[in-house]
Structures are given as structure tokens and as C-alpha cells.
């Protein structure tokens, strides 16, 4: 036991709570076998620390202490409740009376964090539930924060979390890291959840920008955690790189009024160089690993963009080449559209327009505002005023995002006044 002066004590405990409470929770869930009971146990353990540590000193291994106390609190509570609530099942883990935490390998404790991540992102849960549960259990956001970030009622957010936990319990979703044969597929779901959270923050409209920006930060934090836990997976590095590179442009992509600034017009000195450097290192490393995929390739494209000194100096050939690889492993109309934009940058808007017309004739992306906005831009650059106006109007009908709407409206008005 280490003696700590009283005044330093609460800061130390606060720091410990901030840094370690999710790790302690992840292990408690395994030992107790239920998320809700583990959350209560976590709370009880920190409460006990608050009461005991000032007199008895901080234990040598605070996390192990918290886990142990939390577990005993859960068993106590369980024994007391049993008399009143006969319906409660006895989790098997309650059988063993003592656990020696020195015997618990660090690997196992690290695996607990992975277990929690893979459980929250279990494919049998809806995407909405996966996101809400991940933000609640792994990022420790409150239900109110989640509701605000996703522009939903707190009751809706709470319901999603409660239902997801009930499904985990009642359908018995295992608290396990997937077997190696299934890891890639399951990891993909986790990466999807993280990227959805990131995009929710990244494409936030200005009105609530502050709270929603935090989602991008949380997503990047999740990416870092996952990389720490699974350091050899290419796509984790790719996704983290992609998020860092996109986020590096955050300051430059809107005006003070919240209006959108296109990549070509952005003030590149506002780009976050630190994030860019980290992102580029990660992309290069990911490209050298087996199993890189869509996130790594998108990050590589983002890296080519941010490494250009100006929009004119962008290496479009390189970008088009990367899009070609991307389309081969992941055929998608959205990627075709982005490739069309890159090709138009190299070969002119007429070629880009042909590619877009081909998408439309196949009936693809016809409800995607960005496709009509791109079509409008190509017409505009070709001097085809009426076609451009029509396409801008079409794009406006398809988007709800305020900054996008203002941007499109501005372009439309310019053309109509010509």
C-alpha cells in the first residue's frame, strides 16, 4: 500500500477512474456475466475506494483491487437479491469464491476489452444498437450525450441500449473474442461501427456541430484502442489513418458561418499537420501488411490529396489508380462516382459527365444528392446552364444537411442570375 496525501488523493482517483474504468468494467462483465450488474459493481468498487483508500492507502495494483472488490460486491448483492427475486439465474462465474488476480495474465485483461468491443458490435444487433452500445459501454458516453449526438430523443437512445443489453443477456451473445477464422469478418462490423460514428460527427451540420464533432474524436479514440489491442490488423490501421486524414481538414472545410468549402478551395495551412503525418505513416504501414482493404485504400487516396501542396498539384493519376484497385475489391457506385470526379479532374468534365450518365442509366445513386451536385458541377463547367440548374435543383431536393443546402443554393442562384 502506498500512502498518498489527502488532497492528491481525489485527483489520483479521478485520473484512475478516467483512464481505467472501462478496462475494469470489461473484466467485471466477464467475471459477473452481465453488463448491468457489472456496471453497478464498478460503481460500488470506486465508491469503496473513495471510502477506504484515504485511510488505508492506494493498493499496489489499483485495477486488480477494483476488479476484486467489484466482483465481491456483485456476489454480495446477488446473494441478498436472491431471497427477494427467485427468478434471477445464478451466473456460473459466481461459483468460484476467490480469484487471484496475479494469475490473470495481462493478455486476458486486454482480451476483456476486445470481448466488450466484439460484444457491443455483435452482428446480431442492429447497426443503431451497435453504435449506441459501443458509445455507452466503451466510450462511456451518457445516454443523453448519445441522444444529443444522434439527434434522437433520450428515451429512444435509452431504449436502444436497454434492448441491446436484454438481447445480449437473453439470446446469450457470448462474451468472447471471435475465433481466428471469423475475426476478419467480425472485425469488419466493428470497423463499420467506428466509421459510422466518425461520419456522424464529420458530416455534422453547424447548429449542433460542437457536440457532434465529439463523435469524430470518440471514433478516433476507438480506432486507437482497437489498434493497441490488435496491432497487426491492416484495416484497423487503414481506418485510423482514414479518420485522421479526413479529420485533419476539419478546420478548413467550413467557413466561420458554417458554410462548406470544397477541397480545392481550402486553406491548406489550416490542415492539421500532426494528424496528417500520423495518418500517412499508418497508411504506409497498412499497405505493407497482408489483408489491407477498403479503409486502407480510401486512406491512401486521402493521403495523396493531403500531401499535394495545392489542388492543382494533386496527383490525379495516382488517385485514379487507387480507385481502380478499390473498385476491383469492392465494387460500389459511390466509389465509381468518386472515381468519375477524379477522372474529370484529369481529363475534363465532359468525360466525368459520361461516367455519371452511365451510372444514372443503370439506375444507380438516383437518390444521392452528391451525384446530382457533381453532375450539376460538370454541366456548369461545360457552360450548360439549364442542365446545371436542373441538376442543382434535383440535388437540393435530396439533402437535409444545412451547409450542403446552402452551398447548392448559392451555386443555383449564381447560375439563375447569369
Amino acid at each position, binding site marked *: 500500500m502506498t500512502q498518498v496525501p489527502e488532497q492528491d488523493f481525489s485527483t489520483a482517483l479521478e485520473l484512475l477512474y478516467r483512464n481505467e474504468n472501462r478496462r475494469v468494467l470489461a473484466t467485471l462483465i466477464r467475471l459477473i456475466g452481465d453488463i448491468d450488474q457489472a456496471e453497478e459493481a464498478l460503481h460500488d468498487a470506486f465508491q469503496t475506494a473513495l471510502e477506504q483508500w484515504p485511510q488505508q492507502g492506494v493498493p499496489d495494483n489499483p485495477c486488480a483491487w477494483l476488479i476484486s472488490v467489484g466482483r465481491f460486491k456483485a456476489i454480495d448483492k446477488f446473494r441478498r437479491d436472491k*431471497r427477494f427475486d*427467485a*427468478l434471477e439465474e445464478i451466473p456460473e462465474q459466481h461459483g468460484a469464491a476467490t480469484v487471484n488476480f496475479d494469475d490473470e495474465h495481462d493478455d486476458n485483461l486486454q482480451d476483456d476489452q476486445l470481448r466488450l468491443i466484439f460484444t457491443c458490435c*455483435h452482428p*446480431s444487433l442492429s447497426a443503431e444498437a451497435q453504435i449506441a452500445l459501443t458509445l455507452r459501454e466503451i466510450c462511456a458516453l451518457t445516454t443523453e450525450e448519445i441522444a444529443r449526438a444522434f439527434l434522437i430523443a433520450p428515451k429512444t437512445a435509452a431504449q436502444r441500449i436497454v434492448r441491446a443489453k436484454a438481447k445480449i443477456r*437473453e*439470446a*446469450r*451473445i*457470448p462474451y*468472447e473474442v*471471435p475465433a481466428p477464422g471469423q475475426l476478419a469478418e467480425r472485425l469488419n462490423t466493428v470497423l463499420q461501427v467506428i466509421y459510422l460514428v466518425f461520419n456522424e460527427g464529420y458530416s455534422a451540420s453547424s447548429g449542433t456541430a460542437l457536440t457532434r464533432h465529439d463523435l469524430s474524436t470518440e471514433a478516433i479514440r476507438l480506432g486507437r484502442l482497437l489498434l493497441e489491442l490488435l496491432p497487426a490488423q491492416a484495416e484497423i490501421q487503414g481506418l485510423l489513418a482514414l479518420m485522421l486524414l479526413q479529420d485533419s481538414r476539419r478546420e478548413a472545410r467550413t467557413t466561420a458561418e458554417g458554410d462548406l468549402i470544397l477541397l480545392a478551395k481550402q486553406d491548406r495551412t489550416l490542415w492539421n499537420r500532426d494528424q496528417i503525418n500520423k495518418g500517412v505513416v499508418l497508411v504506409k504501414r497498412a499497405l505493407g501488411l497482408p489483408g489491407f482493404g477498403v479503409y486502407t485504400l480510401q486512406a491512401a487516396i486521402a493521403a495523396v490529396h493531403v500531401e499535394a501542396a495545392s489542388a492543382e498539384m494533386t496527383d490525379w493519376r495516382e488517385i485514379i489508380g487507387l480507385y481502380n484497385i478499390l473498385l476491383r475489391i469492392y465494387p460500389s457506385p459511390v466509389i465509381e462516382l468518386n472515381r468519375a470526379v477524379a477522372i474529370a479532374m484529369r481529363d475534363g468534365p465532359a468525360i466525368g459527365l459520361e461516367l455519371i450518365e452511365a451510372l444514372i442509366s443503370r439506375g444507380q445513386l438516383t437518390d444521392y444528392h452528391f451525384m446530382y451536385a457533381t453532375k450539376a458541377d460538370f454541366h456548369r463547367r461545360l457552360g450548360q446552364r439549364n442542365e446545371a440548374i436542373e441538376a442543382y435543383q434535383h440535388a437540393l431536393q435530396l439533402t437535409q444537411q444545412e451547409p450542403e443546402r446552402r452551398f447548392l443554393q448559392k451555386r443555383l442562384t449564381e447560375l439563375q442570375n447569369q
Partner: protein
Amino acid sequence: MKYLCLVYSVESLLDAIPDSDCLNYDKQIRKSGHCLASEALQPVHTATTVRVRDGKVSITDGPFAETKEQLAGFYLIEAQHLDEAIQLAAKIPPAQVGSIEIRPIRPIREMAEKIIGNLSENGRSKK
């Protein structure tokens, strides 16, 4: 832990799955000890729906809902957890043309028995 795997499919598509495939899997899953019961059902045109409202029994032809996918059979399985249940369900041959709904069994009987057990235990300890 018990799960009921409900096999749904558009009936015409089921013809693509040979009965021998279904029988083979049935034999295999029974042998592994995971299967507690399993049956295939006659087509939905043989179905009758019964409802009781205000004590009155009403009988109608066919299934309750006009859905495209119909219940074609079921497996009652024993699995350690949902992941194992998913693995077992994915191998049911009609999964290739239809879908399998996995529903955990609510242990209603076990719970009732436990309540009764606890009540008599508490009764004894009070005396």
C-alpha cells in the same frame, strides 16, 4: 441453452433443395447432440388458423399473415451461446434459399419450478 430455429422460405424456392440434403443435415445435427427436435412442415395451403376472442373460437384457412416467406420447418437445438446457434443454423440447407430465425427459448417452466422451490425453502427456514 435452447434455441428454436424457424425455417422460412418462399415455398417454390424450396424445390431447389433436395430432401436428401435436409435429411443428411438432420441426421448429422441429431448425432452431434445439438438437436432436440426437428420437423418439416406441409405447405402453407394446408394450414388452419385458430383464434379465440371473447371465448369464441374462429377458424380461418391459411396463415395469419400474407407474407411471401412461409414457415417450412423447425429445429429445436441446444447450443452453448448465440454464436454456436448461428453456426448450426447456417448449415440448415434451406438457409440457402430462405432464412432461419433463431429465437432463444424463454425458460418459463424452469422459472416457475424455481419460484415454487424457493417458496417452500423460505417457508421451511421461517419455521
